[in-house]
């Protein structure tokens, strides 16, 4: 790998800019696609842009389809994000676990006593009301949102924004009873069945989690499942 390409790639990663590294596995050719431009060996070749854009939008690395199967595209998207609402004890476990799993984590809590650097070393904190905070972060389809405050004022504010976004996962801490009450409130706020069906509540996979760290494991496991697990193979259509 040429050093200038490696440096440009690392710079893009630091800035959170999407880019793609291209290599010709037969000739050793190499180049970078960044900010709409090709640099390196693919700058004057065939128009690969639509194929590279497709790989980027699908977040998949791999060989290009024929006749370009010798060209390997490696997609470097910014990390998938996890937005945690509520700088509570479970968040203290979930934030570092999610970071280790590769997520860019932000914790939102307007209560300054909770959202402190001392309680969340190295984690991005936002001392904002959850709806303002979420609006500012613009959740997209590469974002997961988890509410942990247990306080309807804060959780519902976050959900009112999350449910209008394309985020791929929404999870809410709370018992079945609490969750039913939450769904009733959201219905009164005008959300429909399809909206409410997006919410995972009680949050996490049912593994009997008890402690904050265990609940964090169960939550991160569920986010992983939603993001990665392939739907069950369809049954044979033959009658």
């Amino acid at each position, binding site marked *: *790998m*040429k*050093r200038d390409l*490696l*440096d440009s*790639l*690392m710079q893009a*990663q630091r800035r959170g800019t999407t880019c793609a590294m291209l*290599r010709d*596995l037969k000739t*050793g050719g*190499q180049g970078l696609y960044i900010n709409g431009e090709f640099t390196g060996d693919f700058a004057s070749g065939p128009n690969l842009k639509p194929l590279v854009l497709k*790989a980027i939008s*699908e*977040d*998949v*690395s*791999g*060989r290009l389809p024929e006749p370009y199967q010798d060209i*390997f595209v*490696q*997609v*470097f*998207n*910014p*990390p*998938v994000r996890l937005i945690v609402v509520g700088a509570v004890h479970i968040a203290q476990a979930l934030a570092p676990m999610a*970071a280790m*799993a*590769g*997520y*860019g984590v932000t914790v939102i809590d307007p209560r300054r006593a909770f959202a402190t650097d001392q309680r969340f070393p190295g984690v991005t904190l936002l001392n904002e009301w959850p709806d303002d905070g979420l609006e500012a972060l613009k959740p997209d389809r590469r974002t997961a949102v988890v509410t942990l405050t247990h306080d309807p004022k804060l959780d519902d504010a976050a959900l009112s924004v999350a449910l209008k976004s394309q985020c791929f996962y929404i999870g809410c801490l709370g018992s079945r009873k609490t969750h039913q009450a939450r769904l009733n409130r959201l219905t009164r706020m005008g959300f429909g069945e399809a909206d409410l069906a997006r919410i995972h509540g009680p949050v996490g996979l049912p593994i009997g989690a008890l402690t904050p760290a265990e609940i964090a494991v169960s939550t991160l496991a569920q986010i992983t499942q939603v993001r*990665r697990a392939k739907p069950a193979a369809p049954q044979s259509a033959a009658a």
Partner: protein
Amino acid sequence: MTEALASAATEDILREAAAWRDAGRGVALATVVTTWGSSPRPVGSQLAVDQGGRMIGSVSGGCIEGAVVKEAQDVIADGRPRLLDFGVTNEQAWEVGLACGGKVQVYVERVE
């Protein structure tokens, strides 16, 4: 094609590779470019290797890293990239193969 890895991990690998190079050491970068069947690491996974065999990252669950590190020494020496095949159908399976039965293709290139 598999989903791209979160860049948090690849970022560390590339940074380390650049740091080794800056320290004057020969460095090669190995990347999983194709997989078939069940393979332990998805396409795009990377392993950086230096001339002393130091490594960061992975291209498998540990089954083929030894062989990749060995090939990487040749790549560092002559600068010629290599495309390596590993899998149970490969003749190398007796030596280094994937216990899981998958196949994987790894591209090894020198960091200039």
